[in-house]
């Protein structure tokens, strides 16, 4: 009785919208998300719920989940995509309910929502290339890259990608240094090559944000600052541009305090404490 009434009543409403329904709730997909290997689509909530059920049945933490449709093992759910960026929910983090960005990492992500060339007037990027400053080792680079990758990939463990990128930049610099002894290369060419080499290395991991990531990396290198000083400049600019952030004065101060505490607590931020210049 109840079934018939309700079903008939809703017939006309969702007849058309259910052409590609979520396999779990059979309704229109809400918060569309898909599994990273087989690309099957589900409501974000539905698939998360299912993963919770699956993980409650095993004693150890799940690292992957079988697609309910095709049984392919998947490591993460991709969701919140808008053509430029997306979020990634790793199955292994399901129980603790996810990787939580630290304030520092959140601030870095925020930087990616600013216009490109955000700090172009503060740091002289062309001069960095002209003076071949990239040939000098930058001791803050690794720590900066680590945090950047953690924020972008939303993953604590970025060691492999980090070493990959550091290796690629190192070998690039060495190559340029050697070539430079034989022939003159213009600063623009070096800059261009550097960016394409790093893009290529980073793209599989930071994907849609690759170009901006390379710009940010270049900016950081060009600044010649260590991480703390660089952050100070960046944050100041962020606040000037975003009154909402200053608006909450207390919050901003609290944030800063929390940051200081974290800096003290996070050893790797300390390694490069002295001025890198």
């Amino acid at each position, binding site marked *: 009785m109840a079934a018939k009434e*309700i079903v008939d009543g809703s017939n006309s409403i969702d007849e058309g919208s259910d052409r590609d329904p979520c396999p779990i*709730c059979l309704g229109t997909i809400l918060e569309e998300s898909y599994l990273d290997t087989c690309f099957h689509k589900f409501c974000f909530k539905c698939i998360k719920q299912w993963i919770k059920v699956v993980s409650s049945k095993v004693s150890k933490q799940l690292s992957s989940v079988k697609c309910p449709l095709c049984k392919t093992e998947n490591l993460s759910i991709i969701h919140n995509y808008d053509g430029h960026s997306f979020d990634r929910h790793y199955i292994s983090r399901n129980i603790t309910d996810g990787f939580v960005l630290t304030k520092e990492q959140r601030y870095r992500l925020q930087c990616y929502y600013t216009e490109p060339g955000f700090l172009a007037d503060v740091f002289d990027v062309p001069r960095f290339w002209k003076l071949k400053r990239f040939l000098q080792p930058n001791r803050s680079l690794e720590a900066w890259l680590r945090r950047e990758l953690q924020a972008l990939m939303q993953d604590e463990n970025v060691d492999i990608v980090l070493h990959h990128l550091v290796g690629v930049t190192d070998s690039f610099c060495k190559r340029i240094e050697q070539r430079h002894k034989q022939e003159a290369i213009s600063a623009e060419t070096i800059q261009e090559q550097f960016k394409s080499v790093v893009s290529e290395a980073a793209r599989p991991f930071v994907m849609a944000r690759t170009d901006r990531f390379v710009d940010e990396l270049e900016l950081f290198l060009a600044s010649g600052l260590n991480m703390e000083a660089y952050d100070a400049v960046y944050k100041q600019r962020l606040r000037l541009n975003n009154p909402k952030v200053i608006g909450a004065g207390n919050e901003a101060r609290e944030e800063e305090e929390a940051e200081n505490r974290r800096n003290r607590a996070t050893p790797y931020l300390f390694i490069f404490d002295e001025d890198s210049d």
Partner: protein
Amino acid sequence: MQTSRARLFKEYKEVQREKVADPDIQLVCDDTNIFKWTALIKGPSETPYEGGVFQLAFAVPEPYPLQPPQVRFLTKIFHPNVHFKTGEICLDILKNAWSPAWTLQSVCRAIIALMAHPEPDSPLNCDSGNLLRSGDVRGFNSMARMYTRLAAMPKKG
């Protein structure tokens, strides 16, 4: 509550639409309780169940589709993976291999497939399983056909 109900309504709708498409399965929802369903399935051809119509009872649990429905045969059937007295079915997808992408309709299809392809190595009906395991296909077939005739065929007159 809400999720399982909403999903069952969707299935109900789908069943109404698919009725013509799959003449081997007739799924009916209880008039007063959407969590209770019955199904009539036709015995697959070229099996000892051919010509029989078997009734299944579904009890859908609250967390459905995160948990599988409970299904049993109401019609007596001689099959290695069906308990002869209770009608309980031994089928992986109704236990640990369950996926929320299954529907009541597709579960019926899986049961029809199980009827055509028994798994004598995980028997609920040992007599039936032993016949198959010892290679006595003929003996198995005649027993199964006898019970199909007795229990699953409409009596004439």
